[in-house]
């Protein structure tokens, strides 16, 4: 059983947005009854069928690493967190739909995980100055998930969803908006479930398959994302 192949996906976001609830929902199909502060990192495993329904169906383990903390932590905490960012195959960015700051902090989270920390001070880069080119050559698939959808009032929903659509576009990623206390958002067959499945398939593909469908032989763990081995793969 443990001989299945595995991929590692980080789950990043501010404190209190609902990462632990989300991971629990994804891996155990149940709502988390008593959420509490995540100290350090908590991991959970999801069994995923790659290319489900086709003859090439294969089962993989997806490790979801839920890293706790905030972008404004002391640099000692950031250095300790950096040990979890090695050899990452995919990143899920989680933000709170009721809290605009958590969405803005996603830029810093993604930069921290991709080892390109720009601004060491507390000054936040506004959307207008954001440089999309930083993400142009990023090989790691991203997914943006907005939580606490049930707490957004009907009248404000359209405005919030437009804002998050821009956010997801900045990251060149898909987005899912849901409520972690209600499993029906990820029910089989719903559009959210399809997006999720597509994201995991993309992660597995980038890790194990070349563009022409051949399988890459097992890699030794690399320290930095996009290290020498994948540079030869160019996506026009």
């Amino acid at each position, binding site marked *: 059983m443990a001989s299945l192949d595995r991929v590692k996906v980080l789950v990043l976001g501010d404190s209190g947005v609902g990462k632990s609830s989300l991971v629990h929902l994804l891996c*155990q199909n149940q709502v988390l009854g008593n959420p509490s502060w995540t100290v350090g990192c908590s991991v959970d495993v999801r069994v995923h069928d790659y290319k489900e329904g086709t003859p090439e169906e294969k089962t993989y383990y997806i490790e979801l690493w839920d890293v706790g903390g905030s972008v404004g932590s002391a640099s000692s905490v950031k250095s*300790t967190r950096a040990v979890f960012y090695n050899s990452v195959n995919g990143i899920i960015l989680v933000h709170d739909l009721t809290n605009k700051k958590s969405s803005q902090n996603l830029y810093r989270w993604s930069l921290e995980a991709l080892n390109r920390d720009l601004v060491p001070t507390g000054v936040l880069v506004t959307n207008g100055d954001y440089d999309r080119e930083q993400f142009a050559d990023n090989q790691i698939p991203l997914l943006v998930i907005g939580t606490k959808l049930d707490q957004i009032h009907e009248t404000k929903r359209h405005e919030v969803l437009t804002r998050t659509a821009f956010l997801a576009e900045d990251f060149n990623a898909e987005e899912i908006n849901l409520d972690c206390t209600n499993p029906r958002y990820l029910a089989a067959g719903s559009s959210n479930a399809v997006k999720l499945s597509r994201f995991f398939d993309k992660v597995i593909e980038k890790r194990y398959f070349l563009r022409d469908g051949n399988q890459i032989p097992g890699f030794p763990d690399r320290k930095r994302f996009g290290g020498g081995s994948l540079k030869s793969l160019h996506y026009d």
Partner: protein
Amino acid sequence: MSFLVDSSIMITSQILFFGFGWLFFMRQLFKDYESRYFHWKMNLCVILLILVFMVPFYIGYFIVSNIRLLHKQRLLFSCLLWLTFMYFFWKLGDPFPILSPKHGILSIEQLISRVGVIGVTLMALLSGFGAVNCPYTYMSYFLRNVTDTDILALERRLLQTMDMIISKKKRMAMTRRTMFQKGEVHNKPSGFWGMIKSVTTSAPGSENLTLIQQEVDALEELSRQLFLETADLYATKERIEYSKTFKGKYFNFLGYFFSIYCVWKIFMATINIVFDRVGKTDPVTRGIEITVNYLGIQFDVKFWSQHISFILVGIIIVTSIRGLLITLTKFFYAISSSKSSNVIVLLLAQIMGMYFVSSVLLIRMSMPLEYRTIVTEVLGELQFNFYHRWFDVIFLVSALSSILFLYLAHKQAPEKHMAP
């Protein structure tokens, strides 16, 4: 560019604000003594009203709104909470000899005395802790030696623990999947009958799961410990590097001065308590008198003491409030969440208000004799000596317990992961 614009707007508005305020206050409002006195009294009344009536009620309201059950009757329950608060607040005054019997029940002295007790306790606790923590933080004598290999070894252990957790979780996920496919649904025993049923009949798969879950819980606890220790090591390493820079050396030097000052303060607090002494003159006047007597330098004592003590009092107020805000911010940042942020901000406001009132009480000791009567007039007839004694006692207790606490924390940490 926007940063420049913002800062220029801020600076201009601040200059305008202070300039206008100075003009207004000096020329118009405080022409005579009477109006100054009136405004002092009025400000004090307003602050007390806010501290005792508005803020606790607001805090109670937010706490009650957080509890979903009582959503309908929010106002009623917050009123109840406020009444309980008032009852305990009043009871607070009983064990302390703070009032003379000439005051009525609704006078302002009652409120001030109680607020003063709480505020003075808070000030003494913070000063005691700060007096001990400050030299401990600044001086590099206490820094443990941390090398890169220590950190790497700890990180390796952390990752190994994470790997063990992952392999166990993989087994659990696979077990759940096969159980689901076979049609047995794993139900957590819910309710009383569920637990009784699970004693007699339990699927072998779910038994396995609970066993593995317990092992995973223990491993997760271990991983949390390792994470915190690693963060601690990184912080110590940064402090060592910082202490080698010029700024670090300067602060190290300051630390020695601070430690002498703190030891002196603790000593004075002990002497005050043991010998039941109350200071008569303030330190500045005494210092100037000493210089005049022993060094023979001619000073106009009254003139200089007034100005120097004024500046000193200002510095003391500013630094103590600044220190309080920094400490509280760090503390609240660690425990804040989206639910309780309102409550925390209000608690902060409450603490600041009490701190301010009691610092007015205590600053009286640092002022020259002729100004003390002014404070006494405004605040009413309170037993000031009691407050100073109370401050000394709590300061001593707090300083000694923080020394003990820091000693224990310092001792138990280095034995764990130092390279031999």
